[in-house]
């Protein structure tokens, strides 16, 4: 990072400027993705598989944020589960209140029998508009407060990763501890309705799928706009050489903060849509382990490439279901191997595979090793 001779590597997929004609290709890819999500998948997949795909797409939405924050900004956030959880719980609280009907308590509160009325911090979530706003704005607000503390004091690299992970652990532990008002370890389960639509009806399940698919495409478009803006360039610059950016008169803390907050909002939206798709949100979905699993999809597909991160997230989630169905114990080994192979030997992810192979081939005659992929880590 402080090396004065770190000229931008030629042919490095993470540093290369956008070539002309790239945006036409991106538009074509976007259209193909829309076609696949809106036409092919609903026609080809059974209701059950489509429901699973909806779940994977939620993971992919988190991966879009991770691509921005980690792939582009170098912020390894191991706590996206926190924002996913905030969005998810906000939505689930509203749906539980709506399920219970006016004047009634959500079923689990009656079960534990301690409260006679809704706790004060549940009450605003009776309002659907407040809830929808909160699923995105609440995670963003939390990220903004935490991020502005942390980035301004130049806590970075592994320190930031550990802090974000501790945050995920703390939220999960807190939720488990407050069983009477949060459902504890079970979480908020058995969600039956979604803004008046009955979720047991397969037609409404399909509608939820379409909402999720549309949201994912929207987030991808938004992230692409950000990445290819001047801000996106600045973000990569901060990742690769924070001090130089500082010397140029920018405040890297603000640059990082924007990426972190946007990623948090995306995770929040993903969590909110995850709830009607799956019908449950619990601490087991937001703690340390799921938080780090959000990262692996992006890492496998290619952290710095939007398409790579999204497809990687969907692919890993799919592989998880497929492998756990066939060989329950094997998934953990496979997942461990994925982490090791993707990060140790292919840091650019599958998205960089073509480039790596090409460089190997061109490098072979001269006997030079393939150039390493500097990912610009803040040490």
């Amino acid at each position: 990072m402080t090396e004065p001779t770190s000229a931008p590597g030629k042919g490095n997929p993470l540093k290369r400027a956008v070539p002309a004609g790239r945006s036409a290709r991106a538009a074509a890819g976007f259209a193909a993705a829309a076609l696949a999500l809106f036409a092919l998948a609903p026609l080809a997949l059974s209701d059950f598989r489509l429901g699973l795909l909806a779940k994977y797409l939620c993971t992919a939405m988190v991966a879009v944020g991770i691509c921005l924050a980690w792939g582009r900004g170098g912020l390894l956030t191991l706590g996206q589960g926190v924002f996913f959880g905030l969005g998810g719980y906000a939505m689930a609280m509203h749906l539980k209140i709506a399920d219970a009907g006016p004047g009634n308590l959500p079923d689990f509160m009656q079960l534990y029998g301690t409260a006679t009325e809704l706790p004060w911090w549940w009450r605003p979530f009776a309002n659907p508009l407040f809830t929808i706003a909160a699923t995105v704005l609440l995670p963003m607000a939390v990220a903004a407060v935490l991020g502005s503390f942390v980035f301004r004091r130049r806590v970075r690299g592994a320190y930031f990763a550990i802090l974000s992970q501790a945050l995920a652990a703390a939220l999960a532990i807190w939720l488990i501890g407050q069983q009477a008002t949060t459902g504890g370890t079970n979480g908020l389960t058995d969600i039956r309705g979604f803004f008046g639509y009955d979720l047991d009806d397969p037609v409404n399940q399909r509608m939820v799928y379409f909402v999720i698919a549309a949201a994912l495409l929207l987030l991808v478009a938004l992230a692409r706009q950000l990445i290819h803006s001047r801000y996106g360039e600045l973000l990569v610059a901060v990742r690769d050489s924070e001090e130089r950016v500082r010397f140029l008169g920018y405040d890297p803390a603000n640059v990082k903060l924007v990426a972190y907050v946007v990623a948090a909002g995306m995770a929040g939206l993903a969590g909110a849509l995850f709830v009607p798709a799956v019908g449950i949100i619990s601490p087991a979905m937001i703690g340390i382990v799921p938080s780090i699993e959000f990262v692996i999809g992006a890492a496998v597909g290619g952290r710095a490439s939007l398409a790579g991160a999204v497809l990687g997230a969907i692919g890993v989630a799919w592989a998880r279901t497929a492998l756990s169905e066939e060989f329950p114990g094997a998934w953990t080994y496979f997942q461990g191997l994925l982490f090791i192979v993707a990060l140790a030997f292919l840091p650019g992810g599958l998205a960089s595979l073509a480039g790596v192979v090409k460089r190997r081939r061109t490098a072979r005659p001269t006997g030079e090793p393939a150039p390493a992929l500097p990912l610009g880590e803040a040490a």
Partner: protein
Amino acid sequence: MTVILGQTFTGVSIGAVLLLIALGLSLTFGQMNVINMAHGEFIMAGAYTTYVLQKSVSDAGLSLLVALPVAFLVAGALGALLEWLLIRRLYLRPLDTLLVTWGVSLMLQQLARDVFGAPNVQTRAPELLTGHITVVGGADPLTFANSRLFILTLAVAAVVALSLTLRLTPLGRRIRGVVQNRDLAEVSGISTERVDRTAFFIGSGLAGVAGVALTLVGPIGPTMGTNIIIDAFLVIVVGGIGRLRGTVIVAFVLGIMQSVLEYSTTVSVAKVLVLVAIVAFLQWRPQGLYTLRTRSLV
């Protein structure tokens, strides 16, 4: 008064466990700037070593004593292997190393599940360590559990041994040299590669010793590493890297804070409050309590 003393003692013993775990971590993190997520599984390896030894040596006291060096070697060997296979290839990519070692930890957990089964197992504590010392008698007694005292002694011994090694031996001098300035150490004829591996061996071995200690206070299971490792990482983050002093102080402070807050609130609230305190502390000292002073900007 006895409540305060009792809580402080509980805190100190939590701190001792944290210290034992964080000690090895601070060595490996300080040495190679690598966050080793598999450290928790080295602890687990140490704990299972104790379990296996107790199965083969029936005497609980003897097996515990034997387990200390054996667990050190087992966990140390695992660490050296990990360093040789993976970590040295990821030099200068600390964040990727973090995730790669997380993958390793997943695989080790599953391995433990396949070999020893998913349910937790338990070891018998030796007779000598099952009792407690009564410090204040009477209606409101204050007692210190022997096993906790043993862990405290072990932690102190480990700190003393490690700091003497770092301070007095040629190996310690080399380790300190590499931590302070890797390039300069390299051009002075130190094989940084070998120093790295040795430091990793010692750091991971200490995790094994921590695993032996943990068998005295809790069950042994495949996920025992993950549950405790985050706290140990926080100790390192707050204590600052490359200095033992910070690790020691912060381990005990966090332990006491945890215990006192748990007493006055609940376990879950205490965890959250400790985290808030840590974020607030990092506002004041973003690089931790003690840091190596360098002129570099990073």
